[in-house]
């Protein structure tokens, strides 16, 4: 029971982080039809911004600056690197995104050095629930991700801007004919994705208070896997895929015999799901050519 409960909470909490990152991948894919492989590195940038502003010892200010900084960076990357390539071959955009990813990692290494930096944002301590000791930070992470995902779902479904995003993801031309500024919607999408990535950076620092220039690399790939498992382009799919992957990872870590193979297990699930259901769990069949 104890093991079950703590694994459940940790799995959901990690899954929530993956889901937050996966949302950035899936929304950008759905609307700009591109894979933004620099998305994971936004997490790292968010982490470093928190690290820098924690010098002032004000966690809320640091978090706020991380979100604002990542949003601006996301918009800048889109304007400088991706917008000129609109209409170019998907391969050119993909390679550019990988280039931006390395650029961000290298810049971080030049500025902050290659050694890990330690930063404690806030020590929530631990709490005992039903006789099970648990990290409060995991509960906070879970709570915040649930609220953010619910808010995002409501935003997409019930606001003018949210519906415009659905319209653009479905048919850019028809959306323009409604008077929707497609470039504006793409900018907003990058801004939202980057804000979520900044929060993910915060959650990683709450989990383990250490940061390096590659902080975002593995979570980025895991979250991309989650987005594909859930069905890339689908918002509920990204949430589902993220939670699923987080649970699998936590359960696998708890079983000594297979713990070292956790990453392999996660990516094998991706391969199996792609073989059985190429569009992922909630993905749509795509008719257009790539």
């Amino acid at each position, binding site marked *: 029971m104890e093991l079950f409960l703590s694994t459940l909470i940790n799995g959901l909490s990690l899954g929530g982080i993956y889901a937050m990152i996966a949302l950035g991948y899936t929304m950008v894919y759905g609307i700009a039809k591109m894979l933004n492989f620099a998305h994971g590195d936004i997490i790292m940038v968010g982490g470093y911004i928190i690290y820098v502003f924690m010098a002032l010892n004000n966690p809320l200010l640091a978090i706020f600056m991380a979100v604002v900084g990542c949003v601006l960076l996301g918009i800048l990357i889109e304007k400088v690197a991706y917008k000129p390539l609109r209409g170019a071959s998907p391969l050119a955009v993909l390679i550019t995104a990988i280039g931006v990813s390395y650029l961000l990692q290298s810049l971080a290494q030049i500025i902050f050095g290659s050694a890990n930096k330690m930063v404690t944002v806030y020590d929530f301590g631990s709490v005992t629930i039903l006789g099970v000791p648990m990290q409060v930070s995991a509960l906070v992470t879970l709570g915040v991700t649930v609220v953010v995902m619910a808010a995002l779902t409501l935003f997409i479904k019930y606001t003018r801007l949210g519906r415009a995003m659905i319209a653009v993801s479905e048919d850019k031309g028809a959306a323009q*004919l409604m*008077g929707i500024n497609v470039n504006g919607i793409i900018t907003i999408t990058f801004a939202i994705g980057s804000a979520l990535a900044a929060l993910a950076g915060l959650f990683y620092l709450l989990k383990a208070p250490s940061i390096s220039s590659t902080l975002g690399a593995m979570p980025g790939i895991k979250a991309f896997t989650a987005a594909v498992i859930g069905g890339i382009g689908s918002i509920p799919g990204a949430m589902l895929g993220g939670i699923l992957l987080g649970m699998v990872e936590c359960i696998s870590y708890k079983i000594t015999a297979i713990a070292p193979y956790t990453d392999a297990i996660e990516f094998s699930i991706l391969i199996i799901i792609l073989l059985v259901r190429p569009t992922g769990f909630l993905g749509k069949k795509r008719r257009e050519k790539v």
Partner: protein
Amino acid sequence: MAMLEVKNLEVYYGVICALKGISFEVNQGEIVTLIGANGAGKTTTMQSVVGLIPKRGGSITFDGRDITKTPCHKIVHLGMTQVPEGRRIFQELTVYENLLMGAYSIKDKSGFKNDLDAIYTRFPRLHERKNQIAGTLSGGEQQMLAMGRAIMSHPKLLMLDEPSMGLSPLLVDQVFEIIKDINRDGTTVLLVEQNAGKSLAISDRAYVLENGSIVLSGTGAELAASEMVKKAYLGG
């Protein structure tokens, strides 16, 4: 002065010339039709006028304003709305949400309820199915929705690209009735059609487009009586 004035419009797809400098105009209150065969450049004309595809040369004036270089989403705010070829409704949204998207360019939301009621009165089927996912509608219903969605933006000029395509003869008649109706209510209409007979019958004026050039123009009745049009587009 004409409401829409197109002068020497040239469009290229790569090195292929799709429109070789065509000129036409639409006056306030008219129904004007462009007829022509597949590949003549009808849809290209419609899409380049509204700013969806880039122009190589020429100029377009709408409502006294030069819109040659205006992006599509801004043109819509000026009062030019297009029902695109193949309807292109938002398949994943409900009927109601599609109509809501149609009103996207209207800043003042106070008239929304009235506009919506007017659409539901004009198209009772849309009212019956207002909460249905639009992708599950029949072809005829989708065409009604596409037209209703366009009207929600209060167009001064409504452009319809092949509204009768793929519909049963009964529905085709209904669509042309609705176009006449919308025009009678004060909306200027630019129509592109392969169904030359039906469209010429409701048109004030018309142009014949062939291989990217306008080869003939006149009133709807004149063109319907023309030997060349009869032979090429009216089956003898």
